[in-house]
């Protein structure tokens, strides 16, 4: 039998296919060849065949017949085989299949292998797809590796431990001793994954959270060193020292400081420092600032710090970078309930965002605008929102209309204003209002006895011009039916009495 073709050749061949059918034919032919090659139990070419199978799998073709072959590769002595074998296992297998349990022994051996890269592969695979049984069996090995001095393995062991804890939460205690020295590491990779592990443990267990609160001073120190350290070429990203680690630590501080006065106080200074000193010209600086703001808002920070945070968000709203504007709006939405007054100060900027070209930003701005409407600003806000309703994309109209009705109901300064607003919505976006809007409106009109004449006149005039919007027509028809006498009797002082012509609604 001729040697199986190389991965590169297969890719080249497939790329020459001009139609989907041609591609399928080539793939089927190659799959058949691979199947026979597997049957021959050839060790030399197994690696190449599985690699090809993974490529075909990515294109959407079935590759499950290669699952056992991945296991054979994992059991091989060669690093090359193991590398593809583990990758295949991660892409093709999952814990729902019994086959995956066969990996447990191999992984156990490889976790103790003499080559660190083999150990790394085993940790990676266990950390990606290890089932609860596998995690239970191998947790001890992971814990051992968490204490090693080899930073390459230690960082992987930390993330693997996170996966083990997610699968088997009872095992969390077992990793506690190993966490003692994790923050003393110099290696940033290890520090980073250690913080992830600590975060996971704190989020899962209130006891762990209480236990780890004592780490706050150490975390503050590490963060301080990162900010003050000056230029460090290996960790520098656009002039900031390891922004990813800074963000991770800020997040852990958030969890530790929540609902705890002492911890919150211990981190007040560093948060203020980060908030004022971080360079904002590049995205990495803004990512750190953003995380700082979220932390300040979530812990028990002093009011001065909170105002600082909201002002940072306000500045973000004016940033040219649309991503920054988007996250600012998202954060303001989260804080608008608790810090309503501070957010109100930025209302005009937020309302300007309604005119942004970006759909995601418009949506956020709309939600935030509704959250900011109150008795004082209802008239001004409604003007802007009605204008928005007029000009926005169809996907927003239903939500916007509902929002306007709600706001009008809560804060309407007068009945007439209320009815005018509703009319405006019905005429602008009548076909987008929700079904329950019609009965609600009818209820409202019924209750506003003094407005009946005015209302029925306005409605009649509205549908004279255009009766394509069903909800409008429904309300109008009902109204005219109920108060038709008012329409022709000229009781409404503001409008001229009108001649009603029977209009057949086709």
């Amino acid at each position, binding site marked *: 039998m001729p040697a199986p073709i190389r991965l590169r050749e297969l890719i080249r061949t497939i790329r020459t296919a001009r139609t989907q059918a041609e591609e399928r034919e080539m793939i089927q032919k190659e799959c058949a060849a691979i199947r026979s090659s597997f049957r021959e139990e050839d060790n030399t070419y197994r*690696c190449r065949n599985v690699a090809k199978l993974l490529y075909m799998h990515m294109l959407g073709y079935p590759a499950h017949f290669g699952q056992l072959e991945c296991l054979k590769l994992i059991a091989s002595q060669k690093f090359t085989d193991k590398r593809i074998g583990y990758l295949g296992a991660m892409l093709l297998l999952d814990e729902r299949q019994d086959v995956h349990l066969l990996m447990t022994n191999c992984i156990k051996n490889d976790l103790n292998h003499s080559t660190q890269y083999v150990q790394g592969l085993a940790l990676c695979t266990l950390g990606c797809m290890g089932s609860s049984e596998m995690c239970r069996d191998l947790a001890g090995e992971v814990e051992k590796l968490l204490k090693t001095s080899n930073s390459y393995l230690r960082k992987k062991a930390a993330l693997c431990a996170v996966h083990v804890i997610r699968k088997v939460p009872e095992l969390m205690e077992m990793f506690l001793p190993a966490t003692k020295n994790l923050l003393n590491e110099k290696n940033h990779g290890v520090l980073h994954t250690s913080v992830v592990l600590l975060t996971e443990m704190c989020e899962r267990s209130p006891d762990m959270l209480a236990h780890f609160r004592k780490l706050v001073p150490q975390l503050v120190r590490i963060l301080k060193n990162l900010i003050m350290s000056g230029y460090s070429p290996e960790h520098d990203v656009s002039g900031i020292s390891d922004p990813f680690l800074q963000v991770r630590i800020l997040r852990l501080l958030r969890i530790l400081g929540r609902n705890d006065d002492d911890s919150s106080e211990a981190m007040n200074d560093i948060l203020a420092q980060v908030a004022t000193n971080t360079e904002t010209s590049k995205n990495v600086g803004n990512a750190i600032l953003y995380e700082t703001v979220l932390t300040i808002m979530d812990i028990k920070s002093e009011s001065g710090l909170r105002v600082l945070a909201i002002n940072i968000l306000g500045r973000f709203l004016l940033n040219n970078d649309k991503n920054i504007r988007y996250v600012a709006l998202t954060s303001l939405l989260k804080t608008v309930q608790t810090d309503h007054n501070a957010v109100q100060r930025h209302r005009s900027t937020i309302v300007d965002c309604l005119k942004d070209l970006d759909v995601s930003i418009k949506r956020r701005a709309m939600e935030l605008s509704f959250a900011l409407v109150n008795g004082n600003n209802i008239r001004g806000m409604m003007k802007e929102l009605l204008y928005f309703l007029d000009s926005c994309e169809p996907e927003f109209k239903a939500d916007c209309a509902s929002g306007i009705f709600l706001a009008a109901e809560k804060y309407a300064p007068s009945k007439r204003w209320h009815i005018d607003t509703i009319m405006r919505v019905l005429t602008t976006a009548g076909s987008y209002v929700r079904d329950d809007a019609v009965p609600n409106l009818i209820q409202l009109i019924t209750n506003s006895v003094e407005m009946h004449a005015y209302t029925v006149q306005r409605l009649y005039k509205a549908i004279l011009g255009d009766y394509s919007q069903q909800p409008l027509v429904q309300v109008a028809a009902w109204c005219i039916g109920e108060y038709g006498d008012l329409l022709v009797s000229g009781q409404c002082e503001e409008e001229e009495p009108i001649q009603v012509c029977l209009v057949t609604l086709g």
Partner: protein
Amino acid sequence: MILAILVFNNHGKPRLVRFYQHFPEEIQQQIVRETFHLVLKRDDNICNFLESGSLIGGSDYKLIYRHYATLYFVFCVDSSESELGILDLIQVFVETLDKCFENVCELDLIFHMDKVHFILQEVVMGGMVLETNMNEIVAQMEAQNRLEKSEGGLSAAPARAVSAVKNINLPEIPRNINIGDLNIKVPNLSQFV
């Protein structure tokens, strides 16, 4: 937590597909297609975040993407990840690819899908960020590639060729050829090593 990392070109052809949560194969392909359609609609001057499609569980998940020339890099993440942070992470991943492949282009990703997976494995593990220092990642990749090379690599063909030739039975060459009075001494041919 990162739920999935997808790389596809401007026509939706997948170049890298990695899920960190299990989905059946047909669903995986559907997600790739749906994500492509969502992302294709976006102008280049609007923000890089959008709500993920209906197939990927619920409103907790967002798609964060970057568009480089002919390729889209899309990370599907949940609310525990910082959106701006993930944008930076995508940049780190792409710059690492650039260092490993020397001015990476789409063809590199096409023909070295396995290598791209291996590089990604050093950046993200189990849906969590593992390492963000590019030099560190490149050094680890180089060491592992050297290890592979010393074993003969994926194809293993050159090693086979050598051993095949080694095993050929070269016919016995007489040391002395006697033709009448002529005596020709054949030089000692060195063994093919």
